[in-house]
């Protein structure tokens, strides 16, 4: 299990929530709001998931990850692509949409932290996110949107001997 760092080395939870809500509102705002979700500390994301990550490097180093429930990932994609209700999003479309979601969250997290930094292109996977063993959890949001779970995490390089 990852260690949890002091907030000074990571975005504040309130700031991460504000960023996430802004992105959510822009992409899915008309359909409801994100709400907090009670999850036992340290528990893995408990849904069949899509996950996407983007790395920030430079004045600050960290990895921003978004994990989504399968149904939610497809609803997000359908909405972003304005697909007709009868048309199902392909896996590549879902990967594209989830990648853009983490790109937006990550880019705005970057603006909260010391710079200058560079944001990587997003990496997307069908399944749970994997984290480097030399990283530490710095900030995490467990949220729910219309009964579908969402997790946003920030990991930073772990200090000390490896």
């Amino acid at each position, binding site marked *: 299990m990852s260690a949890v760092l002091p907030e000074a080395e990571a975005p504040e939870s309130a700031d991460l929530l504000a960023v996430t809500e802004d*992105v959510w509102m*822009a992409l899915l705002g008309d359909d409801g709001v994100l709400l907090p979700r009670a999850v036992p500390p340290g528990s893995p994301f408990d849904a069949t998931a899509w996950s996407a990550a983007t790395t920030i490097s430079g004045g600050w180093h960290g990895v921003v990850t978004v994990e989504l429930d399968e149904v939610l990932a497809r609803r997000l994609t359908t909405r972003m692509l304005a697909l007709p209700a009868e048309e199902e999003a392909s896996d590549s479309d879902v990967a594209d949409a989830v990648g*853009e979601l983490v790109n*937006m969250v990550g880019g705005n997290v970057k603006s909260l932290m010391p710079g200058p930094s560079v944001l990587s292109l997003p990496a997307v996977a069908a399944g749970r996110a994997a984290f480097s063993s030399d990283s530490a959890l710095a900030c995490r949001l467990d949220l729910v949107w219309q009964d579908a779970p969402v997790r946003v995490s920030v990991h930073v390089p772990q200090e000390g001997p490896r």
Partner: protein
Amino acid sequence: MRAMIIDDSRAMRSILRRIVTDLDFETSEAEHGQAALDQMRAGVVPDVCLVDWNMPVMDGYTFITEVRANPEWRDVTLMMVTTESEQRQIVRALAAGAHEYVIKPFTPDAIVDKLSLLGLVPA
């Protein structure tokens, strides 16, 4: 009016296409800066480009410098639409020749307002 939407995300291109199509723009799309340059060299020269920053192959900043280096494209308006929100980067893009800068996430009104400021849609 013709708009070229340059973004590696198909979903983001779709969102932007709907916004500018509602404003009666004709649209073309490219998934990175090099593909956009290829289209322009082939004669598809838009009135305005909506350009992401972080893209594979050729990023939006490089695309802008390439467009501004070609006098034949001096009338093309360049608008960055990106998550890149560091002040240093915004200044850099504007200095390279971008006319406007929109940070993701955005509302449709934000895009319309910027296009209006640029004189590309009625105020």
